[in-house]
C-alpha cells in the first residue's frame, strides 16, 4: 500500500490532538443551537424562578421573531389567492380576499416559467453535486495536520472571502473559458463556499483518528478511507452542507442572469426577479412609458410562492441531520 507509511507516520501527532481540539471546535461552529442537549447533560443554570422567567421571556421573544418571519410569507400566500383589486387597496393580510386561482393557472401555463423552473432544478442539482464533491475533498485534505502547506491552502481559501475580482473580470474569465451558456458558469465559480469549507474541515478534524488508523492498518488507501470510513460517518455534515448549497444555488439568480444569453437558459429566480423588480424600477423616470411594465401584484405573489415552496419542503427532511450536524462535537470531551 502506497499510502500506508504516511498514515502510520502521522499517528503520533494525531494522538496528541483530540483533547484540545474538541474543546475549541464547537465554538468554531458559530451559533449554538443546542441548549437543550447541554442542559440535559449538566443543568446550568439550575432551574429556579429566575430561570423559568427567562424561559418564558425567551419563548415570547422567539415567538415574536417567528411571527415577524412568517407574516410576510403568509401575506404573500394570501395575496397569491386574492384578486388584484383587494391587493391594490391593501386589504389583504393573512387571509385571501376575492378568492382567485386563475392567476395560478395563468402562471402555470407560461412555458417560459416551466423551462426556467426545470433549469433551476438542473442547475441546483448539478451545482450542489459539484460543490459537495469539491468542498468535501478540499475540507478533508485540510483536516489532515500532516499535510504540507496546509496553512497556505487555508489562507488561499480565506483570501477569497475578503477579496474578489469583481463582476467584469469574472465575466471575462468565464467567457474566456467558454463557460457562458452552460451550467458550469453557475456551478464552477461558486463551487467552494469558504464558510462551508471551514465548517466541514473542523468536522473532519473532530473525527477520532483511531478509526482511520485502524482502516489504514487493515490496508485501505486514503481514497478508500475517505469513501468507506469517513463519509459514511459524516452524514450529518454532508446533509447540512448539501442543504446550504442547495438553498444557495436555488436562490441565486445573478450567475444565471450574467452568464446566460438565452432566456431558455435562465433560472426561475431570474424570471421571478424580472417580474418583481420591473414594477419598482418603472418609477425611475428614465424608463419612459414605452417600456412601462405593470405586472399584476397577484402574479408576483403567485410566482414568489411557486419558487419558494419546493425549497421549503427540503428543510423538514434534512432538519434532523441539520441540528446534529452543526452541533456535532459539542458533547465530546
Amino acid at each position: 500500500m502506497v499510502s500506508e507509511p504516511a498514515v502510520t507516520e502521522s499517528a503520533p501527532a494525531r494522538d496528541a490532538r483530540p483533547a484540545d481540539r474538541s474543546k475549541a471546535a464547537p465554538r468554531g461552529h458559530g451559533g449554538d443551537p443546542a441548549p437543550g442537549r447541554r442542559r440535559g447533560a449538566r443543568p446550568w443554570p439550575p432551574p429556579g424562578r429566575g430561570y423559568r422567567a427567562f424561559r418564558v421571556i425567551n419563548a415570547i421573544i422567539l415567538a415574536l421573531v417567528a411571527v415577524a418571519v412568517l407574516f410576510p410569507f403568509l401575506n404573500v400566500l394570501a395575496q397569491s389567492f386574492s384578486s388584484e383589486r383587494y391587493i391594490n387597496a391593501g386589504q389583504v393580510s393573512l387571509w385571501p380576499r376575492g378568492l382567485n386561482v386563475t392567476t395560478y393557472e395563468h402562471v402555470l401555463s407560461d412555458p417560459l416559467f416551466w423551462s426556467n423552473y426545470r433549469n433551476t432544478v438542473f442547475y441546483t442539482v448539478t451545482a450542489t453535486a459539484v460543490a459537495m464533491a469539491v468542498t468535501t475533498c478540499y475540507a478533508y485534505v485540510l483536516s489532515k495536520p500532516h499535510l504540507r502547506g496546509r496553512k497556505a491552502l487555508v489562507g488561499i481559501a480565506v483570501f477569497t472571502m475578503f477579496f474578489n475580482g469583481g463582476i467584469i473580470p469574472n465575466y471575462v474569465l468565464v467567457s474566456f473559458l467558454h463557460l457562458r451558456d452552460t451550467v458550469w458558469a453557475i456551478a464552477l465559480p461558486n463551487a467552494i463556499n469558504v464558510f462551508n469549507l471551514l465548517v466541514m474541515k473542523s468536522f473532519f478534524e473532530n473525527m477520532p483518528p483511531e478509526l482511520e488508523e485502524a482502516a489504514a492498518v487493515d490496508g485501505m488507501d486514503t481514497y478508500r478511507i475517505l469513501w468507506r470510513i469517513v463519509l459514511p460517518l459524516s452524514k450529518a455534515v454532508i446533509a447540512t452542507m448539501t442543504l446550504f448549497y442547495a438553498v444557495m444555488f436555488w436562490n441565486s439568480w445573478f450567475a444565471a442572469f450574467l452568464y446566460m444569453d438565452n432566456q431558455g437558459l435562465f433560472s426561475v429566480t431570474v424570471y421571478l426577479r424580472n417580474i418583481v423588480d420591473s414594477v419598482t424600477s418603472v418609477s425611475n423616470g428614465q424608463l419612459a412609458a414605452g417600456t412601462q411594465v405593470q405586472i399584476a401584484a397577484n402574479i408576483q405573489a403567485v410566482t414568489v410562492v411557486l419558487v419558494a415552496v419546493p425549497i421549503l419542503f427540503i428543510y423538514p427532511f434534512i432538519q434532523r441531520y441539520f441540528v446534529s450536524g452543526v452541533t456535532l462535537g459539542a458533547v465530546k470531551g
Partner: protein
Amino acid sequence: MHQPSRRRFLAGTGAGAAALALAACSNAPTSSSAPAGSQSGGMKNFGVGTQFKAAAPLTFTIAMLSNPAYPYNANWPFFKYLKQMTNVSFNPTVIPFADYNTKIAALVNGGQAPMIIPKVYPGEEDQYVAGGAILPVSDYVHLMPNFQDKVAKWNLAGDLDQRRQSNGKYYLLPSLLQSVWQDYSLAARADILDKLSIPTPGTWTGVQSMMLAMKHAYPHNYPLSDRFNQPTPGGAFLNILSAAYGTAAGWGYQAPSNGAYWDASSSAFVFAGTMPQYKAMVTFVNEMYNQGLIDPESFTQADAIALQKLTSGKSFVISDNAQGVVTDQAALPSGQTIVKLPLPAGPLGKTLAQNASGRISSGGGVMISSKALSSPNFTAMLQFIDWLYYSDAGQLFAKWGVQGVTYTGSVADGTFKLEPDVTWAGLNPAGTKKLNATYGFSNGVFSTYTGSTQLLDSQFPAAELAFQKGMASWALSPLAPPAPLTTTQQQSATLTGTTLMSTVQSQTLQFILGKRPLSQWDQYVSEVNSQGASRFVSTYNQAYSTYKQQHG
C-alpha cells in the same frame, strides 16, 4: 477614432473595467470613414423613403431586452415580417428587463458586446466612451439618410449637440421626437371634481384651490398623497413643478447633471438648489403642506402605498402618466374615475422646460459596438438601423405592425385603427391578441415613444389625445448648450455633485415639511456653497466655454 489617454481611461471605468476594455480597444479603427470591404450586403442607392433590403441574408447580434409584460419570443411575427422586408435576422443576447444595464456594462466592458445595443438612455453611454468599445457613431451618420433627414427637418441638431463628448463626437443614436412630449402630470379623481363642481385646474394655483376645495369637503383626508419617489423623493411631482418655476428638482435633479442648470437669462450654468426660483417653489409646496393638502408621507412612501391610499379613497390626487392612468382606473372601485389633469402652468406660464436632453430623451437610443466596424456588413447594418429606427416606414412597422394584420387604415390620414381583436395599452381592451406579447410589435427594443407627432398621437386613447392637444399651445424654453466634461472633470463633478444633491434633497424635504423654517433659507444657501456648489457649477461653465472654443 479617438484613442483615450491612459489617465482618462483608468479614471473612466475603474481599474478592473478598464483593463478589460483594453481588449475591446484593440479593434478600434483609426480612420473614420467606413472601411473598405464593409459594403457587403448594403444598398448603393439607399435614401429617405427607400425600403432597405440586404442583398444577401444578414444576421446581426443584438442586445434584446426581455420585458416581463411581453417576454422575448423568437417566433414573433415581427421577426418574420422583418426578415421578409429587409433580409435581416438577429442573433440576440436576451437580457431581463430588471438588470439590463448591469448586463450591458458587463458585455461592453468584457469585450463581448453585441453589434447593436438598443435601449440606452442619453447619458448612459458616457461611461463607455473612454473604454473605446462603443463606436463614435457621429462619424458614420452620413450612411444614415433617414436619421439625418429627421435631425434636419425637426431641427434637432441642438439637442444632438448635448450628447457630444469633449472630443466633439457622440456615441449614441438617440430616439428623435418631432415635438417635446410631456407624459407625466397630476391626475385627479374626476368624480370628486364633478361632485364638488371644481373646474379642471390649468395652473398650479388652480391645483392649490382644487385641493383646498377637496380638503374643505373631506377635512380628514390629504388630497395629495404622491408616488414616484424613487430614486429621488417627490421625483415626478417636483420635476413638473420645478419646470413650471424654471428650475430643476425631483427627477430633473439627478445625475448626470446633478443640478447644474442652464440659466438662459445669464447664459451660464447655475446651481439649481439655490436659485430664487427654487426657493419660490419650495415656499409654494410648504404653503400647500401647511394647509393640509399634502400627505406628510407623500414624497417618501412607496408607490404601492400611494396607490392604496388613492384606491381606498384616502387621497384624490396623484402623479401619473398616460399608461399609469389606464392601470389606476382599473384598480379603482367602480363609480370612481381618474383623469390626467392638463399640465399645470406656473410662474413661467405655458412654457415647457426642456430637460437636459429635450426631444431626444424619452425613448432609449442605440449604441453600436466598435467591433461592428470590422464587419463586412457594417454599411448594411447602419442602413438597416437607419431604416428600422428612423424611417417613417420602419417606425410605423415597429410600432403598429402590418396593415391588414394588426391594424387597418393609415396613420397619415388619421384613419388608423388597431384590428378589433388586437389590444395594446388601453386600446381595444377586450382584444385577445396582444400587439406586443403576441406579435412582437410596440416592443421597446425596436419602437419607442418617438417619431412624428402624428405617429405618437395615433397611439393614444381619446383622453390622452386631448391632453396632448392641450400641450400643443405650450412654448419651449431654450436648450442648454453642450458642456461635455472631461473624465477628470466628470469625476470631481460627480463627487461634489452627489454630496450636494443629497444635501439639497434632504433640505428641500425639511423646508417643505416645515421641519426647517424658510427663514433659514440664506443659512441653507451658505451651507450648500460651503460644500462646493460654486466650484461644481464653474466646472460646467468651464466645460461649456472650452467646448465652444474648440467646436464652435
